[in-house]
């Protein structure tokens, strides 16, 4: 099964098994990865599953849709390679993808 690596703000690495077709948010939630809140369950509306994708992997991702792009403008610790984990779907090509979890997520 493909794997994704979640790197915590302190540098700790967590390797998650992610079935093809699942989002990285779903994998993070199942594994209880701290810092990925995912309050809306994957609708790209709450912006609480922000991750920073390592550039090599970021280049493989399809462009964010408008709602995600708008939310990414508002998330804390935004970077050039920021994405919402609920919009990153695992594929064979993404096996080994590395993402960094920010120390805070969007809050009201």
């Amino acid at each position, binding site marked *: 099964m493909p794997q994704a690596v979640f790197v915590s703000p302190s540098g700790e690495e967590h390797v998650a098994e992610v079935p093809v077709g*699942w989002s990285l948010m779903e994998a993070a939630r199942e594994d*209880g990865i*701290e810092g990925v809140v995912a309050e809306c369950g994957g609708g790209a509306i709450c912006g609480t599953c922000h991750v920073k994708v390592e550039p090599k992997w970021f280049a493989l991702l399809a462009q964010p849709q408008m709602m995600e792009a708008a939310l990414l403008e508002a998330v804390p610790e935004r970077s050039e390679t920021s994405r919402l984990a609920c919009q990153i779907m695992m594929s064979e090509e993404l096996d080994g993808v590395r993402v960094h979890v920010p120390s805070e997520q969007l809050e009201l």
Partner: protein
Amino acid sequence: MKSADAIIIGAGHGGVECAVALRAKGFAGSIALLSDEQQLPYERPPLSKAMLAGTMDVERLRLRSEAIYAKNGIELALGRRIDRLDPAAGTATTTGGEVWAFRHCVIATGARARRLAQPDGPGVYSIRSIDDVLAMRTALQPGMRLLVLGGGYLGLEAACTAAGLGARVHVIEQAPVIMSGRVSDVTAGRMHALHLEKGVSISTGAMVASWERTDTAWRALTTDGAVHLADIVLVAIGATPNIEFAEAAGLACNGGILVDDACRSSAPNVFAIGDCAARMNPELGRAIRIESVNNALVQARTVAAVLTGNTPDARKAPTFWSEQCGRRLQMAGLALPGTPCEDVARDTARGWLVERYQHGVLCAVEAVDSPVEFMQAAKRISIQ
């Protein structure tokens, strides 16, 4: 006798979050999480959306993998329904007679679908669990007539999803508008129009006066004089909190288990969170139940903070969301019922935003396909 320092009754969003948050905040005692279902705990919002549409697997609804409970020292006890609670003795008893002793008890039993005496029988469904939605999805074939009772979030989500599956859908709502009391007339009207575009017909201001069961269908005569034939009826007229055992245990209840700011019930060793808890809302001036994922998570974290000697986060406006007709609707805050709202609406790049003012104070915000505008406006909601 089984025992745990903290038992959590109910393993929905609130129960699971409470168990995990207790551990994350350093709770050192044993934790047991009791569910009356056989499945691993799962999230419910997709049930009336992607699960009904058939585009979501049961596995993907799981809130945590099985291994995570063990790793966090959380004893997950499935298939346990608590029907007796004795706060003074510190025990909870399942319908099967299993007794659980506790130091702290967190009630997170949620709510169940309200049902009517009629219609009842073949082809009548409600949606609260995976089993409910799987049963309805199996029965619902393209071309079938689906009658939805209740034009609230759940009924409308299911209605447009079923229409997308090829069902012929009609919604009956007794209030003059859909999502009555929940959203502004602006949003209700615009969403109503979107439902019509998707092929969902809606009667507002109508109720079913009588039901008749023919050989294969339900026949509903409504107060506006219409007759609706339905192969399937979805009852989506709201929820009843699962608090009977708490009432019998003598906990103070008023439409929900009454809790204070710390989510503590009238018994000092018993807490209640989520859909089953009624907490004082200073803006509305009375104790209310709030049915939303956000509320369940916030209250779960509040209890976890209290039980670990930490300070709970400051109260914020409650938030809600719904997905209908491919549009994403977000709401924050609450409007005082019976008090006029001044609604200020404006269009956004993809949808619209409504700010709702009462007595000149911003009390609620709603947005469609406008998450950033929503966040910005919601931050300005007045919290006492």
